[in-house]
């Protein structure tokens, strides 16, 4: 007997998969979510409130003893990375969607801001995003809950930044600044990235999928299901079967959907398509263009650490809050520069239980101890975020020699900064120094080693099927019943944290799928 045919099978349950699955189930579609990791109870399973001295090696494990989850990038858990994210939720702007048109660099999206704006608004209403209305061209306002007050240290940096013509605004986060009927407001314990155990911070499981299930909508989640192949039907370029094995028992299984949606977080989505080879698609599913894995444009960060002089020797305060309360939005688009595009800064997100910087305080003995204590309230982190433009040396492929614990080839990331990307990186360093100097800081370090953060690209959308994998609805050009809804679909990164745009794209794709199901097109 053939297995049940779902309307939609979704691989992955994070910001993209969770948003899309819940929205489709709410519209009446019969949805199956396959998640590689276990089900996690956010109230009880994370070490949310642990302190380092509770552990002999002083390192706080993510999960409580005996609780499973977050064991590998293929098997995080139901809710994916939204369980541990920092919740920064930024809308991208028209200039971000049309970078080539404005700067002659990177790649234009096949959509305009106005196409996605209603979906940003829908997500903001659904999940709750706090922020201030700042009327900035490059960071559009949204439907916001009231912002959370800035920290004293944010105001010091704000006063310094304004001296060099840079604006500091309230951060925008998918964390509740006001309670709702079923979710409390944030209580500022500072442990957002250790797993919010009251769901003041959005995660896709508690905010979208479980409520849909409780409301009796046709949404089934199968945890511990590691998908390793999307099998194409022999007679047509359509995904026939989604093949998985159980994380615990290793038993094989398969699922069928009229539509299959891949949402495994960028590199893993690309890896799954690359693993899904067939006579029709010998180099990977939906890869007739040869672009699958190409155009990988991860965020590049520049880490800066400093001590604010005004706070040296001040009494320590509890300002953990919900980590960063302020943000420096992109400010270079309209200024003279020798590189394309721009960058922004996230800062003051340190958690004061981490005192690793004390190693760099000079001296020993009583004076050393006093110096650490004096610097403790003054320490801040300050990190620049920037994009790179797509280049042939930045891509994702499979490493068949390095298998993961399940015997699957690992996803391998390659990335390189072009000369122009380096000029942009130098500007991130220079502006960081200028802002912190104007804020009267002792600068401890400015990283000379670009590091990657949010993974973006590899499966980009575009209007030309020869140069892209997906169309503007995240639907594969080659495979009409396949969608990819995560940051791999982005043609360029911008400097903004990607999650809000992932959710908005997923919501837009869900509308597209619901429309096609309704019309009986699939």
């Amino acid at each position: 007997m053939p297995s049940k045919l779902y309307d939609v099978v979704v691989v992955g349950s994070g910001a993209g998969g969770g948003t899309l699955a819940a929205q489709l189930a709410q519209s009446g579609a019969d949805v199956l979510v396959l998640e590689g990791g276990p089900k996690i109870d956010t109230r009880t399973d994370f070490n949310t409130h642990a302190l380092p001295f509770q552990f002999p090696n002083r390192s706080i494990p993510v999960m409580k003893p005996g609780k499973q989850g977050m064991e590998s990038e293929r098997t995080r858990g139901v809710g994916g990375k939204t369980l541990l994210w920092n919740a920064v939720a930024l809308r991208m702007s028209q200039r971000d969607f049309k970078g080539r048109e404005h700067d002659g660099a990177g790649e234009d999206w096949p959509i305009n801001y106005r196409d996605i704006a209603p979906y940003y608004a829908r997500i903001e209403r659904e999940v709750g995003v706090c922020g201030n209305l700042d009327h900035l061209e490059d960071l559009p306002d949204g439907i916001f809950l009231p912002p959370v007050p800035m920290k004293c240290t944010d105001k010091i940096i704000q006063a310094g930044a304004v001296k060099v013509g840079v604006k500091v605004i309230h951060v925008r986060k998918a964390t509740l600044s006001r309670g709702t009927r079923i979710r409390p407001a944030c209580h500022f314990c500072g442990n957002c990235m250790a797993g919010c155990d009251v769901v003041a911070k959005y995660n896709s499981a508690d905010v979208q999928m479980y409520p849909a299930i409780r409301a009796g909508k046709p949404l089934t989640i199968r945890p511990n299901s590691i998908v390793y192949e999307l099998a194409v039907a022999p007679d047509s370029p359509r995904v026939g079967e989604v093949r998985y094995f159980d994380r615990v028992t290793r038993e094989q299984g398969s699922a069928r959907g009229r539509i299959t949606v891949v949402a495994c977080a960028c590199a893993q989505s690309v890896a799954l398509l690359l693993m899904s080879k067939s006579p029709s698609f010998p180099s990977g599913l939906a890869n007739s263009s040869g672009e699958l894995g190409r155009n990988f444009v991860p965020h590049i960060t520049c880490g800066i650490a400093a001590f604010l002089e005004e706070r040296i020797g001040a009494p320590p305060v509890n300002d953990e809050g919900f980590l960063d309360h302020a943000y420096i939005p992109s400010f270079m688009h309209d200024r003279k520069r020798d590189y394309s595009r721009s960058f922004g800064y996230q800062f003051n997100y340190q958690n004061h239980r981490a005192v690793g910087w004390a190693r760099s305080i000079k001296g020993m003995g009583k004076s050393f101890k006093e110096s650490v204590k004096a610097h403790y309230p003054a320490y801040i982190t300050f990190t620049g975020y920037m994009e790179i433009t797509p280049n042939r040396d930045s891509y994702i492929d499979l490493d068949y020699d390095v298998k993961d614990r399940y015997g699957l080839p690992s996803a391998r990331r390659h990335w390189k900064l072009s000369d122009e990307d380096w000029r942009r990186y130098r500007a991130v360093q220079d502006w960081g120094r200028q802002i912190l100097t104007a804020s009267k800081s002792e600068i401890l370090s400015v990283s000379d080693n670009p590091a990657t953060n949010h993974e973006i690209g590899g499966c980009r959308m575009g209007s030309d099927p020869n140069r892209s994998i997906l169309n503007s609805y995240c639907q594969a050009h080659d495979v009409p019943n396949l969608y990819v809804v995560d940051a791999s679909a982005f043609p360029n990164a911008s400097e903004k944290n990607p999650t809000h745009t992932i959710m908005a794209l997923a919501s837009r794709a869900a509308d597209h799928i619901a429309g096609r199901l309704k019309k009986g097109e699939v």
Partner: protein
Amino acid sequence: MPSYSTDRRGALKIISAIGATCAYPYSSDELYGQTVEHHHENAPAAPLPDKPAFFNEADFGIIARIADLIIPQTSTPGAIAAGVPLYIDSVISRNKPQQQLAAEGIEWLAKKNFAELSESDQLAILQPLCDAADAGDLKSRPVQFFQMLKNLAVDGYYTSQIGLIRELGYSGNTAMAEFPTCEHEH
């Protein structure tokens, strides 16, 4: 019962300190799948082992003495009271290159009769190592040895209950009814 306190401006309402049980300022009993009580667990320190796992008694004494000189007892307890020597021992017991460096460093100090010297003579040996490490001059093995011990002592002390909470005054990990507004002139 929750305990309430206010800071000097009275703007900050701390509902609980570490280990206390707090109540949310909500009347609803429908808060996400739980009662209105939100409990931040007590955070007892992990017990330290009785004796070192790696160093012998004499060598452990030297390690402990250096840790004590890097972070001495002042008006607050120092490295010894915070159990830092046992932390250093546990890290080095799992790391071969560190074991080699420790052995060389201890031998170098033994030739100078370090354990028998007065505090000022011990400092006269260590201070130049500390200065070189601060200047980034890490060519010599004794300087590398000192820097390793300083890093481990700092890590161990400031992640201990004594170092983090008593010495530095860490007061996060609490529940606040609202985030305090800064009213300073900046």
